[in-house]
């Protein structure tokens, strides 16, 4: 059951990846589910068309009309434009009308497309129209509650504006496919639990100058937890990965356009769960190492330390507040990796039966290592913030407004020259309506 909730979150997460296409996405905290906020509308199990005993079909569409203050993410050459986004979706699941997942086999299949159209008198802006599809699937089989096998699959194609103007500049097109397979067992009363998971990630750029970063990642994870309270667990988690680039030749000296493969290792211990009836925490502390085959590697005491802390507080049922901090490293499209020191906060509030508001913000201080022709490290300060207000006309229809802010500040000066796009401030404001039946 709990695993299914996690699997169900994948569906929401997949929507987020596309709904917020063009903005940075990152996994943040283990309690909040890994995303800053949700612009996707939740699906009510009371809606949908019942196709049979084991199939419930949801469908809907969202239309957003708004304004983008900086289409090219470039403060040195700003281009503003009106923009329209249309997001139709379909979902097929065997969740029951009351929201419960069935015992035995559970599945959830979802597909959506984000269509974006700019309205401008500048041809290098209007040509940025895009189709960004997302497909995701989650399947799980639970046998008698003690053993559960599950698999998820998420494919996302994100299409976004380049950093510089021009009718010949290639759009940034990134395809990402993440598939997981996992086995969870909880013998006896479930006090001891184990989880083994394999994750395969394919990252594929269609943009020519980004193709050196086309990569495949494998990761094995072992998570052992002891629930010393019904909803609180101490855990040990080991993750070993292998990331290889399609254009690199392991064992050979890399050329200027080749990237280094790596064997990222993370081992953490921590606590997850409720500390009071209204407060959840997630704490993790451990060791990390990138084990890059070539070039600079993670190191030092802080560089080898992985840490995360998150608190989620629900003062009342209609209010949710969360706050988190983290320090870790991530494999990077540029250079080898970056250290990420970040903090984030979210607040969501249901003001009445029909009015829902969300507010979030995050700040990430990134230090990139291994960039050719530039200082090491490159330091970026990346900030995101946003607010969403929605009014539900019906359980399946809403209207609202949203605002998002993206700011990046960097000291990156390749060859001593400023580069377009490393510093930008981007405001996006939308009015939106939609149905989610």
């Amino acid at each position, binding site marked *: 059951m*709990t*695993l299914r*909730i*996690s699997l169900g979150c*994948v569906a929401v*997460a997949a929507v987020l990846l596309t709904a917020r296409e*063009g903005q*940075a*996405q*990152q*996994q943040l905290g283990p309690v909040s589910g*890994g995303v800053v906020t949700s612009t996707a509308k939740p699906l009510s199990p*009371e809606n949908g068309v019942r196709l049979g005993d084991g199939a419930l079909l949801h469908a809907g569409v969202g239309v957003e009309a708004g304004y983008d203050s900086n289409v090219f*993410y470039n403060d040195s050459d700003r281009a503003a434009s009106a923009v329209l986004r249309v997001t139709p979706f379909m979902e097929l699941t065997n969740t029951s009308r*009351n929201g419960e997942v069935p015992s035995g086999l559970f599945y959830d299949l979802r597909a959506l497309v984000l269509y974006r159209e700019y309205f401008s008198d500048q041809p290098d802006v209007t040509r940025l129209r895009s189709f960004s599809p997302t497909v995701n699937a989650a399947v799980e089989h639970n046998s008698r509650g003690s053993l559960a096998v599950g698999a*998820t699959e*998420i494919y*996302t194609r*994100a299409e976004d504006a380049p*950093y510089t103007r021009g009718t010949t500049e290639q759009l*940034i097109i*990134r395809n*990402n496919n*993440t598939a*997981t397979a996992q086995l969870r067992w909880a013998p006896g009363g479930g006090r001891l*639990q184990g*989880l083994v998971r394999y*994750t395969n*990630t394919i990252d594929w*750029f269609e943009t020519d100058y*980004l193709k*050196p*970063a086309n990569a495949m990642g494998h*990761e094995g*994870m072992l*998570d052992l937890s002891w*629930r010393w309270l019904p*909803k*609180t667990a101490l*855990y040990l*988690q080991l993750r070993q990965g292998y990331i290889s680039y399609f254009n690199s030749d392991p064992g050979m000296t890399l050329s*200027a356009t080749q*990237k280094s493969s790596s064997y990222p290792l993370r081992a953490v211990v921590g606590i*997850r*769960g*409720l500390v009071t009836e209204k407060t*959840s925490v997630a704490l993790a502390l451990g060791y990390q190492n990138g084990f890059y085959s070539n070039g600079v590697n993670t190191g030092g005491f802080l560089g080898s330390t992985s840490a995360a802390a998150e608190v989620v507080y629900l003062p009342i049922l209609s209010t949710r507040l969360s706050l988190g901090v983290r320090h870790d490293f991530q494999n990077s*499209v*540029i*250079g080898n990796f970056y250290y990420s020191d970040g903090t984030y906060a979210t607040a969501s509030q249901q003001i009445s039966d029909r009015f829902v508001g969300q507010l979030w913000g995050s700040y990430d201080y990134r230090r*990139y290592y291994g960039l*050719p*022709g*530039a200082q090491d490290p490159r330091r970026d300060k990346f900030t995101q913030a946003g607010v969403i207000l929605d009014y539900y006309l019906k359980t399946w229809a809403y209207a609202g407004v949203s605002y998002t802010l993206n700011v990046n500040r960097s000291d*990156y000066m*390749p*060859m001593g020259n400023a*580069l377009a*796009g*490393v510093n930008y401030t981007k405001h996006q404001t939308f009015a939106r309506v939609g149905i989610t039946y």
Partner: protein
Amino acid sequence: MKTLTKLITGTLLVSSTVFAQPSAPAGTASGGGASAGGEVDISVGQKPTLTVDEMTSQARQYQQSMTQVLQRVQVLQETARKQKDIIKLNCVSDKLVQAKVNASIADQAMTALQENIAKADEGGRTHEFTRLTIINQKVLVLGAEAENCIGEDLTFVGATRIDVEVDPNIPNSDPTQPGIPVAAVERPPAASTYR
């Protein structure tokens, strides 16, 4: 003398019966008939005081209960089959068929209940919940009759049931589970060369 004794005894019996009756409420005429100006509550006192959540929860419990009975009757059917006792088998099979039909009706009632809740139809909701209650009772009776078919009624006390009371303020989700990885489909940072 005998006549006098009978008269006194009879008078006491009648008077005690009269005094044992509850007094008529104010505003109603004695004699049992409708009053001239007062209103009489003729509604059937069956309207449940359950909230929507409680009703849904209770309905789910009914469904679980019926599922357990069906499983038990299927076990009994298998037992009769192994014993090669055709009389027991026919008896249990008959109960099982009836129980399945009732469970099917219960599923329909559950769906209708959910629809009525979604439509905020209180009358319909109450009706479907009442249906579910009656069907649940029928299935329980069929389960007991199936036990009688096998002759284990006195030894079988029902499936083990554990009632756990959870503070309603505690979230339903399980925060002890690790999250599913979410791919970081970020926009690549601007750079002079992508290596």
